[in-house]
């Protein structure tokens, strides 16, 4: 329980923002010639530090635009921070937003392999776990139909099943627990708890405070890119609700 899995030390992320994004060469040249290539600095994260230990479930809460998603992207390696660094041991599996790793022309089966490969699973592992994934997603015979025919609930179930089938060292969950019907939500919650029991570190972003209270041990409250408060889940949630 004591090994540090994620260490975020003094991370700052600044974006250079043009007043309007320059997307074409012509625009770039013309604005550059007029000397109007000015950038506004936008600080998404400002010297944020925290650590997450193995097996912990850390909740990130905060208003829209507080920097939660940016933080997750930096931890999963998609963004490089402007300053500071993040040390992350083990493989990070982000739970994709619905369907972003899917190809809609492929069947459910093909998508399990494609999405699994994207999440970094090995082929043997997917072969071994394939039946389990299908069973958990409750898709039955639909697994052989192209997923463009799926309902959104079916897609979400498939995505969740693929993402949680491993024992990833770090699982990143960005507001997607509310998928499927009530029964599946219950099932996915159980699955999450199972994973946490098995030593997976979970980073959990949600606007639903009741979920956060239920799932998380510790919570970090971000506001305007700074850590406003960090500590026990109940305590921070109470403060957040109060503020």
């Amino acid at each position: 329980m004591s090994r540090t899995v994620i260490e975020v030390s003094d991370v700052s992320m600044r974006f250079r923002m043009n007043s309007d994004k320059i997307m074409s060469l012509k625009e770039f040249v013309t604005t550059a010639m007029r000397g109007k290539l000015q950038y506004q600095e936008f600080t998404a994260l400002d010297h944020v530090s925290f650590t997450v230990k193995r097996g912990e479930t850390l909740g990130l809460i905060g208003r829209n635009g507080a920097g939660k998603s940016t933080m997750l992207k930096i931890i999963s390696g998609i963004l490089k921070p402007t300053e500071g660094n993040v040390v992350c041991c083990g493989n990070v599996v982000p739970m994709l937003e619905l369907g972003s790793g899917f190809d809609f022309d492929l069947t459910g089966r093909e998508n399990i392999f494609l999405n699994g490969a994207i999440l970094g699973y090995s082929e043997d592992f997917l072969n071994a776990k394939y039946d389990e994934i299908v069973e958990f997603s409750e898709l039955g015979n639909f697994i052989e139909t192209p997923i463009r025919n799926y309902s959104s609930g079916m897609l979400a179930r498939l995505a969740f099943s693929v993402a949680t089938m491993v024992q990833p060292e770090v699982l990143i969950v960005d507001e997607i627990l509310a998928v499927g019907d009530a029964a599946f939500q219950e099932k996915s919650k159980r699955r999450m708890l199972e994973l946490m029991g098995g030593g997976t570190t979970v980073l959990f972003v949600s606007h639903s405070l009741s979920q956060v209270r239920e799932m998380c041990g510790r919570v970090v409250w971000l506001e305007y890119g700074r850590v406003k408060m960090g500590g026990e889940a109940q305590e921070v949630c109470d403060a957040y609700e109060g503020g």
Partner: protein
Amino acid sequence: MLLLGYAALIILFYFLVGEQLHLRQSRGNRELPAADSGTVELTAGSVVEQSFITTIQRLEQIDVQWGTYYRPNAGTVLLELMDLRDSSVLLSGAFDAAAITEGGLTTLTAEEPIEGLYNVPLLLRITSPDCAVGSAASPLMNTQEKLEGGSLTLNGEPSEGVLCFAVKGTDYIWTGLHYWEFAAAGELLLLAGLGVIWLRLRQGRRSYVVNAVAAVQKYRFLIRQLVSRDFKTKYKRSVLGMFWSFLNPLLTMFVQYFVFSTIFKSDIPNYPAYLLIGIVTFNFFTEASGMALSSIVGNAGLITKVYMPKYIYPLTRVMSSVVNLGISLIPLVLVSLATGIEFRKSAVLSLFFFCCVIIFSLGVGLLLSAAMVFFRDTQFLWGVLSMIWMYVTPIFYPESILPEDFRFILRVNPMYHFLQNIRLCILNGISPEPSVYVQCTLMALGSLLIGALVFQKSQDRFVLYL
């Protein structure tokens, strides 16, 4: 493993290239000058002598061009090649004057190439033992040209100008003669490289090579999945499916064949195969680079959510085009067989140049995909550029129709070099000389290097612009 593979490749290459490894058309070859006058009517007793110095290492044949005064002639003409150092006769041949046509050639061929004539003064003597006035032919000459180190003598009188004669032969290629030394040196270098990597690894230091190999191992499954995804979805919901990869080049070839065959057919032997090789090769290039171009922008949804090395996206696009290329080689083989091309062993060498095209396309693809992220204009620019590129590459026309002034465009166009050598290997059944391999490899790797560098430098900023 690697060393054995290298050795096997080297030996295979040696056998496939064959004679072209050691010998190339001599740089000292002399072409026929344009004839503008006759010399003398070559009757019995007349002598036409042309002295010259050759820089051919292995002299193989000499041609002389004749005029007939547009009448039937009779008798015999005698061609002799003499070494002026000791006046020995190196080659001689007698030809029937009746068989000589206006502007025709008589050819003196050496049974075995004559060596040791480099920078040696030679004399070509043309005489006739029995031709009579009124029925004798005349060797042609060019009165304007001057021959360095040689002179023309007509019946003993020195004369201005040059006899219309051609000298052909081959030279040894230095790298070819030392092929095994080069091969051994390469093997040693490889061994040394492996040794260094192994040492670094033992010291616990990271090395680029090991990292790259590890990455390929790690992402092999992903790459395979992405390639099969591209391939499956490309023809999904079409009736003929992957058969289109096969049909497409064939149909393009038929259309272009009917359109252009009347114009270019006479200039190019086996026009259908010539055309198809061009279409298949260039189609691959445009498809691979075009798909790679949109690979980063098109996968924005994934890139902003999952971490994986970003070069995987352009790489898989190029690889799925390679699968396509593989399929479209089938009609190429079929058409070649149907039009009567014998596949010689050198056809296998065309695979080397196909590899060059693939690597070159990957480099271009990396460059374009990175540029596309920052400037969406890239796709439109590239559309126009690739069209221009297509027209300056001799795909459906022979390179000979380009005026001399524009030939430089071909020389700086890597696609031209790849294409021309593929054609040489398949259509002519001979291998280009060794330096061409080095040239093509350098062009391909150069493109990859530039593309990879630009990509590497800019990839961290991709996410911000997607």
